[in-house]
């Protein structure tokens, strides 16, 4: 019996099994207000020092309306949606995403996912996901797809 996670963790769901996944099922979503604090967390967490992500004058000179959140941040958020859902024994096989539109200061960025397909391949239980980031200003900013391997019940 595995010990309970530390108190500071959000409650982890019991391990998800391939048999539990259903096409159309929504993954729990997460959201972030893009505040100055989140901008700094982005630079700290990604160690991406390209100024378009924190220096408004630099971003505007390049033709952008403002600074925008970087690939490392958006990817981390999409990965969190997936890893929160798939549990400790899930395996992210593939993630593809497109940075089509920007998340900027003042936006509220939400990341969501949905089960798109479920199948077996090479004896593994595979689940394809649609994942995306969105905000009220732009709609979907970052469409993506992922494939996850989930453990089999009793396997």
């Amino acid at each position, binding site marked *: 019996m595995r*010990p309970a996670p530390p108190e500071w963790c959000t409650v982890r769901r019991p391990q998800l099994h391939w048999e539990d996944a259903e096409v159309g099922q929504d993954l729990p979503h997460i959201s972030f207000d893009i505040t100055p604090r989140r901008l700094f967390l982005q630079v700290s967490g990604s160690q991406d020092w390209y100024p378009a992500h924190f220096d408004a004058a630099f971003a505007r000179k390049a033709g952008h309306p403002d600074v925008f959140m970087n690939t490392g941040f958006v990817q981390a958020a999409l990965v969190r949606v997936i890893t929160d859902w798939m549990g400790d024994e899930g395996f992210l096989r593939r993630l593809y995403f497109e940075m089509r539109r920007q998340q900027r200061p003042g936006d509220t960025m939400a990341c969501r996912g949905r089960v798109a397909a479920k199948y077996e391949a090479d004896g593994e239980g595979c689940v394809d996901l649609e994942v995306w980031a969105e905000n009220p200003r732009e709609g979907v900013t970052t469409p993506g797809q992922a494939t996850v391997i989930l453990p089999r019940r009793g396997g």
Partner: protein
Amino acid sequence: MAGAYDIEAVRRKYIGFETAKARGRFPVEYDPIRRHCHMVDDNNPLFLDAGYAKTTPHGAVLCPPSGWLALYFASLGPWPAVFEPLFPVVPAPGKRIVNMSQEVQWSRRIKVGDYLSVRRRIADVYQKGISIDPEAVWIVAEAIIENQRDEVVCVIRNTMLTHRTPEEVAAAQTSDAPGAA
């Protein structure tokens, strides 16, 4: 500059170009993972708590499956970087960069204590204008990340746009105009 840039010459010279294998200066460490998780309020104990992680089938803290973080540990993150980003290697009219898409294919999990290395390859270079720069250049690059056992951990395919600022575009158009000095 506008007339001097020869995309076909750049394609001939750089498509297929591969960097030597570079090894990260440090092993996969707790604190960069902690900062990465903090960025998106991720408090997954598998990434943050060694005691908890030891009780899982993995036996150790895992690195979240982010291609960005894998590249960080493989060379590009810790100061000083082992080498610079690919972008300056491929000539382009503009110096401004936007990542457009990324695909990461994972083969193995990454654990704290692993050593990662990377080889990078230019898969494609092409010119396709965008609203602010008719001479924007797109670079598709692959990064193959391996662990200390020379096992491929993941392959990252990144499409990056490089462009000029509106001021640079306007200046180039002025200098290209008939009668310009």
